[in-house]
C-alpha cells in the first residue's frame, strides 16, 4: 500500500478503504493493527518487524523516547505549495484566541475554522473513527505515542517550522517525543490550588506551612465550596498527594495505591460534598461559586476576567503550587499535531510555525491565560514588564489598579526550573488505565 504524501485526499480514502476491508474480514479493528493487516502483514500476536513496530512506548523523564516513524506515514516534502484551505483546527473550547487565528487567516489569505471537542477521550474517539477531517489537533501528551503508533498523526517536516528555535531548549526535545518528530509544545501549566481569601481565609504562607498543603481540601468548614477537576488523572493524583505529598508516583500501576487514592476522594466527598467541574477554577472561584478548587496555573491566571467586579475580587484570588516548597506537584504541557488525513498539511505546518512566532504565541497567551514556553518569556520580568507591543494585554493587568498588576497571581507563571521539580503524568498501559478509570467511576458514583 503506497501513500503519496502530496495527495492527502487519497490518504483519507485509503483509510476508509482499510476500515471496510477489515470489517469485511470480520476483524473490525480500525487501528494500526488493522492497517497492518490490510497491508498484508499479519499483525497478530507475533512481534511485528522492526520498521513496523507499533507497540506504544511512553517516554518518561528518565527514559525519554524517540517515537517510531513509518515508511507508510512519511512527513510531507519540503517546498510544497500551500493549499487553499480552509484550515480546520480541532481544539478545546476557548483554548485559542480568535484574533490570532484571524491574524493567520489574513497573512495567508485563507479561511480558518475552529472546531471544538468536549474532552480528549471523545476527541480521540471521533478522530480515530475517521469521521473528522481536521488539519491541526491538540493531543495531550499521554496520547501522543498512541496516535503516532496508530499512524493517526503525521511526522512534522521541520523545514516548515524554523520558529521551533524560539522554544525553551528542553521543549524542543521533550521526553515523550524526542526531536519533536510528531508534535510541538503548545501551552505549559502546573496543577495547584486556587482559592478566594473571603471564603477560605488563608494566605499562601499558611498553606505552605502545613505539613501537607494538599490537606487543605479535607476541611469540613468549606463544605459545598470545594471543587476538583472532572478528570480522572488529576482527581486521583490529588488523592495520592493527600497521602504522600512528596513521593507520589503519578503513573502507578499498584491497585492498592489507586484504591487508597479513591478512598481519599470518597472521604473528601463525605466531608465537603466535593464537586467535579471543568470551569470551577477559572470561573467558579473568581465568581465566588467556589471557595477552593484544584487549578491549573493557566485557569486561575484568567481569573480576574471572570470576577463580577475585578477591583473588589481579583485581589482575593490565590494560587499555590506545592512543588516549589518540596512537596509533590504536577506539571504538564499540551501539544500541536497534524493528523495523517489532514487536507491542508502544508498550511498546518505554516500555522504551527506562525504560532511559534514569539509575538503571536505570547499574544495568544494574553487571552487564553495559558503560558507558552518561549525563550522570550523571562519569568522574572514578564509579569512586571510585559512583552513589547502587548503591554497591558495580560490577564493579570485586567482592571488592576493603575500602574500595577494582580501580584497575587504571579505564582501562576511557570519557569523552566519548574519542569525539573514537577511530576509528570505519562500515558498508561490500557489495563493500568482501566484501574484508574474504574476507581474514578467508583468515586463519581458517590457511594
Amino acid at each position, binding site marked *: 500500500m503506497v501513500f503519496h504524501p502530496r495527495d492527502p485526499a487519497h490518504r483519507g480514502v485509503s483509510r476508509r478503504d482499510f476500515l471496510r476491508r477489515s470489517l469485511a474480514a*470480520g*476483524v*473490525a*479493528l*480500525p*487501528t*494500526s*493493527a488493522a492497517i497492518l493487516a490490510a497491508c498484508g502483514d499479519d499483525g497478530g500476536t507475533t512481534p511485528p518487524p522492526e520498521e513496523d513496530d*507499533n507497540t*506504544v512506548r511512553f517516554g518518561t523523564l528518565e527514559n525519554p523516547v524517540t517515537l517510531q516513524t513509518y515508511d507508510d506515514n512519511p512527513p510531507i516534502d519540503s517546498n510544497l505549495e500551500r493549499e487553499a484551505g480552509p484550515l480546520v483546527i480541532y481544539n478545546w473550547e476557548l483554548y485559542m484566541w480568535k484574533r490570532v487565528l484571524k491574524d493567520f487567516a489574513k497573512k495567508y489569505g485563507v479561511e480558518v475554522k475552529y472546531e471544538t471537542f468536549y*474532552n480528549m*477521550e*471523545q476527541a*480521540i*474517539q471521533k478522530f*480515530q473513527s475517521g469521521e473528522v477531517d481536521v488539519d491541526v489537533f491538540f493531543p495531550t501528551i499521554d496520547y501522543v505515542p*498512541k496516535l503516532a*503508533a*496508530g499512524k493517526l498523526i503525521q511526522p512534522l517536516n521541520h523545514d516548515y517550522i524554523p520558529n521551533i528555535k524560539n522554544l525553551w531548549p528542553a521543549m524542543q526535545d521533550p521526553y515523550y517525543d524526542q526531536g519533536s518528530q510528531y508534535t510541538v509544545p503548545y501551552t505549559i501549566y502546573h496543577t495547584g490550588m486556587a482559592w*478566594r481569601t*473571603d*471564603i477560605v481565609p488563608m494566605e499562601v504562607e499558611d498553606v505552605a506551612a502545613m505539613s501537607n498543603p494538599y490537606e487543605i481540601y479535607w476541611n469540613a468548614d468549606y*463544605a*459545598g*465550596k470545594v*471543587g476538583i477537576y*472532572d478528570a*480522572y488523572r488529576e482527581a486521583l493524583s490529588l488523592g495520592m498527594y493527600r497521602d504522600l505529598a512528596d513521593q507520589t508516583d503519578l503513573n502507578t500501576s499498584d491497585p492498592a495505591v489507586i484504591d487508597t487514592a479513591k478512598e481519599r476522594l470518597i472521604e473528601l*466527598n463525605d466531608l*465537603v*460534598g*466535593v*464537586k*467535579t*467541574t471543568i470551569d470551577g477554577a477559572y470561573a467558579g472561584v473568581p*465568581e*465566588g*461559586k467556589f471557595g477552593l478548587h484544584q487549578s491549573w496555573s493557566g485557569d486561575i491566571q484568567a481569573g480576574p476576567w471572570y470576577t463580577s467586579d475585578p477591583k473588589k475580587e481579583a485581589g482575593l484570588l490565590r494560587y499555590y503550587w506545592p512543588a516549589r516548597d518540596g512537596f509533590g506537584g504536577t506539571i504538564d504541557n499540551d501539544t500541536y499535531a497534524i493528523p495523517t488525513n489532514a487536507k491542508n498539511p502544508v498550511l498546518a505546518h505554516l500555522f504551527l510555525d506562525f504560532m511559534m512566532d514569539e509575538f503571536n504565541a505570547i499574544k495568544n497567551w494574553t487571552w487564553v491565560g495559558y503560558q507558552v514556553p518561549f525563550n522570550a518569556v523571562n519569568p522574572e520580568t514578564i509579569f512586571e514588564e510585559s512583552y513589547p507591543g502587548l503591554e497591558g494585554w495580560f490577564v493579570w493587568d485586567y482592571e488592576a489598579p493603575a500602574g500595577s498588576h494582580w501580584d497575587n497571581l504571579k505564582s501562576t507563571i511557570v519557569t523552566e526550573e519548574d519542569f525539573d521539580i514537577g511530576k509528570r503524568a505519562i500515558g498508561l498501559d*490500557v489495563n493500568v*488505565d*482501566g484501574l484508574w*478509570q*474504574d476507581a*474514578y*467511576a*467508583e*468515586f*463519581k*458514583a*458517590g*457511594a
Partner: protein
Amino acid sequence: MPTPTGGIVGQRRWYYPALAAPGILWLLLLFILPFYAIAAVAFGGRDPIFALPIPAWNPLEWQYETFSTTAGELFSSSGLQAQFLRTLAYVAVSVAICLVVGYPVAYYIARYGGRLKILLLTLMIAPFWMSYLMRMLAWVNLLAVKPEDPGLFNRLLLLTPFVNDPVNWSSGRVSHMTVILGLVYGYIPFFILPLYAALDRIDTSQLEASRDMGASPASTFWRVTLPLSKQGILAGAVIITLPMFGDYYTPNLMTASPENTMMGNAIDLALQGQGRQPQGAAITLLLSAFIGALMIYYLVSVSRAAKEAQR
C-alpha cells in the same frame, strides 16, 4: 380503536402497510439495529492501542466477561448499585411530585378551562420553546450562592421567618432536593399533557350520572374521575419516568457533585472514558432491559384496560 371493516382492507391489503413501511423501515434501521450495536460493543473487545471498542457482530464470538462483571456490580454493594438506587429514588419522588403538582393543573384545564383553555394550554406548552438546558441554567443561577449574593431564591426565602441563613442548594442533603426540583421542572409538561388528554376525554355525563345518584363530589372524584384518568396518569408517568432513567445532564448542571449522580452519569462517564465503552454499553443494556420491562408492564396494563372497557 375503531373495529376494522374487512372488505376495504381486504381489497387493498398492500396499501396501508405500504404507507407504514418507510417509517417502520426507518425505525428498524436506525432504532432497533443500533441496539444490536450496543450489544456488539458490550460483548466485544478492545483494540490494544487506544482501547477503543471492537464490536463483535457475530453472536458466536461474544465475550460475556465485561457484561457479567458489570451486572454483578449492579447486584452487589458498589458504586453502580448506589447510583441505580439513587436513580430509582429520584425518579420515584419526581414522578410523585409531578402527580401531586400536575394532576390539579391538568384537571383544572380539562374541566374548568372554558374560554381560557387555549391560553392555558399555550402557556402549558410554552416552556417547550425555551431550551431545556437554558431552563436548568436559569435555576442554577437562581440558586447560586456567592459570598455577597445569596441568590434570588435565597433572598426570597430569607424574607420568610423559616430561613435565617442562605441555603447552599448544591451540597449536602439539600442537593438531592435540588436535583429533584430540576427533574420535576424539566419533565412535568410531558406528564401533564397526556393526563390532560385523558381527563378531557371523560364524558361529563358520567360525572353527572354519578352526582344524580347522590354521590358527593368527593366520592364522584374518587370513584369516577380518578379511575377514568388512571390510564392518563400511567401514560404520563411512563413518558417521563423512562427518559429520566437516562438523564445525566440535570444532575451535572444542577449540582455537579458525585453525591447526586444517576445511572445516566455512569453511562456517560463510561462511554467517554478511554477503553470503558464496553462497560458503558453493558450498563446501557442493563438499563434498557429494566426500562423495557417497565414499558411492557405498561403496555400489558393498557391492553387489559382496553379489554375491560370493551366488555
